[in-house]
């Protein structure tokens, strides 16, 4: 270890998704942390942004957080690490963030610094070659092995980087790193592991810091947290005046968004948190000891995410107030589906109904089978290969709710209410086609790393 401890600040659990809070960040920056780290990625936003190659977050919010961090980091001369640029970590998002960094350097007349960035995109050909070599692309979370058919349905694939490209970038002397798709844990673990701190504690620190103030209480997002690692422990401290990192909040966060609170998998191994011990260190700080890193046996497995387009999409909205119609809403929707089928046949489109007031939120998981509501809102989605067909499918599926034939309905002049008699164009529909792992000989083979001198670029 080059020093006795290392301190990292994280201002936001998903950079750009909602702006970071300034006060707690300034309080943290004043303590001069050794690294400024933040992850910008999430699969929570659905498959659309990756498949369609756009961000889920507004440009201004992304720039706001990058500016806040870059100005503080460069003023102090501390490195800054951003993972999964622009929500998806795809190539175009990395390029977007690199450009923002260049623009900010010029705007603030910053002294020269080195910017590293890497791409995580995986060409389909790479995976086809794996198929040809007889290598299986294993499925995660109960998915089957990847097939050529699924691969062909995919528009864009990214690999989820572990610590490797970050450590390499730091070794090359990077002051600022913009990462493609990455494990959120890795961007915090990398600088600590590079400096020789224990892997178990380093990864654990990443796991705790990655969602910023979600590991503190009371609940409040987008506030800064500082993690400090030594050879023996990790301490996490809430920076906002109204929050603390407590045993309950930090231990509780270990399970957030993860299927199991004891084990966490990253490229290269698994973090075992079975023997984690939590102590209240001071009013705002929780101390953690005992996490262990178990390296993978054999080849390193890297997670892949892929999104494929299902089709163009329109949305229609209908209201129902008649109690008899509400009681028989399933029959009404069967009627509407039948009308779509008469026009378009069985295949070549998708038609969905979310019936709010009945089971619109939970669908089949809803335990309350009968609606007690006096009115329902029905959202109809039609998906097809062309916009024209998607519009017509959705129009038929929505308008036919109005014409449903129920034997005893009193209202024979329409069984639905429309706040507008049209259907609305929506973003194209995508789905997650790939949630798999690929085995690699070299953990860098999927990540294309670059280093540039910002002064030369600017002048």
């Amino acid at each position: 270890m080059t020093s006795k401890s290392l301190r990292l600040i994280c201002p936001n659990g998903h950079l750009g998704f909602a702006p970071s809070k300034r006060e707690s960040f300034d309080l943290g920056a004043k303590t001069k942390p050794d690294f400024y780290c933040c992850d910008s990625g999430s699969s929570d936003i659905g498959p659309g942004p990756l498949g369609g190659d756009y961000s889920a977050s507004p440009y201004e919010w992304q720039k706001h957080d990058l500016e806040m961090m870059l100005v503080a980091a460069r003023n102090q001369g501390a490195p800054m690490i951003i993972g999964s640029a622009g929500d998806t970590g795809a190539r175009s998002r990395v390029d977007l963030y690199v450009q923002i960094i260049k623009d900010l350097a010029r705007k603030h007349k910053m002294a020269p610094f080195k910017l590293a960035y890497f791409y995580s995109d995986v060409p389909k050909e790479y995976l086809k070659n794996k198929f040809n070599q007889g290598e299986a692309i294993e499925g995660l979370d109960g998915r089957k092995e990847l097939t050529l058919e699924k691969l062909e349905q995919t528009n864009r694939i990214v690999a989820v980087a572990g610590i490797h490209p970050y450590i390499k970038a730091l070794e090359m002397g990077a002051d600022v790193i913009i990462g493609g798709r990455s494990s959120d844990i890795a961007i915090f673990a990398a600088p600590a592991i590079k400096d020789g701190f224990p892997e178990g504690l380093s990864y654990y620190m990443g796991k705790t810091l990655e969602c910023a103030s979600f590991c503190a209480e009371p609940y409040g997002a987008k506030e800064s947290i500082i993690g400090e690692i030594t050879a023996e422990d990790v301490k996490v401290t809430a920076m906002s005046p109204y929050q603390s990192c407590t045993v309950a909040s930090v231990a509780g966060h270990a399970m957030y968004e993860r299927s199991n609170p004891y084990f966490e998998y990253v490229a290269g191994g698994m973090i075992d948190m079975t023997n984690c011990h939590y102590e209240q260190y001071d009013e705002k700080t929780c101390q953690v000891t005992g996490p262990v890193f178990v390296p993978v046996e054999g080849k390193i497995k890297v997670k892949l995410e892929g999104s494929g387009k299902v089709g163009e999409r329109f949305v229609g909205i209908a209201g129902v107030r008649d109690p008899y119609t509400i009681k028989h809403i399933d029959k009404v929707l069967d009627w509407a589906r039948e009308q779509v089928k008469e026009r378009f046949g069985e295949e070549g489109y998708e038609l969905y109904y979310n019936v709010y007031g009945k089971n619109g939120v939970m669908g089949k998981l809803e335990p309350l089978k009968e609606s007690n509501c006096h009115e329902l809102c029905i959202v109809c989605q039609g998906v097809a290969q062309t916009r024209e067909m998607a519009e017509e499918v959705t129009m038929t599926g929505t308008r036919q709710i109005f014409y449903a034939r129920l034997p005893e309905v009193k209202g024979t002049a329409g069984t639905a209410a429309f706040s507008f008699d049209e259907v609305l164009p929506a973003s194209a529909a995508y789905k997650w086609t790939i949630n798999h792992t690929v085995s690699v000989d070299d953990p860098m083979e999927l990540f294309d790393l670059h280093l540039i001198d910002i002064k030369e670029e600017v002048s």
Partner: protein
Amino acid sequence: MKVVKLSDLAKTIRSKNAGTDKITFDIIFREKANYELVKNSGAISKEKIARLYGIEENRISDFVEFDPAYAIKYTIYREKPSGSPGDADIFGSQQYPPLLDVEIQVND
């Protein structure tokens, strides 16, 4: 014996995506006593959860009692990946409410 609702005993009851193919549920208690009470009541088990949500037990991928956080946690496979067309809860964040009214037997 009296009956209380889980929402009266737990500090946090929540659901959220765990990756693209699963939704994970956390029931977190402030006091160890309430945690132990619910844990030992048998009211929250793989079998009970499957019945509550009307799913087969094999759709529950993990079921963990997590002592360090006084928490019971389970994870289910989604019917289809998050954000697929027709998915009504892209974050998986509104799948917990049936837990609120689960009844727990308590000694007077």
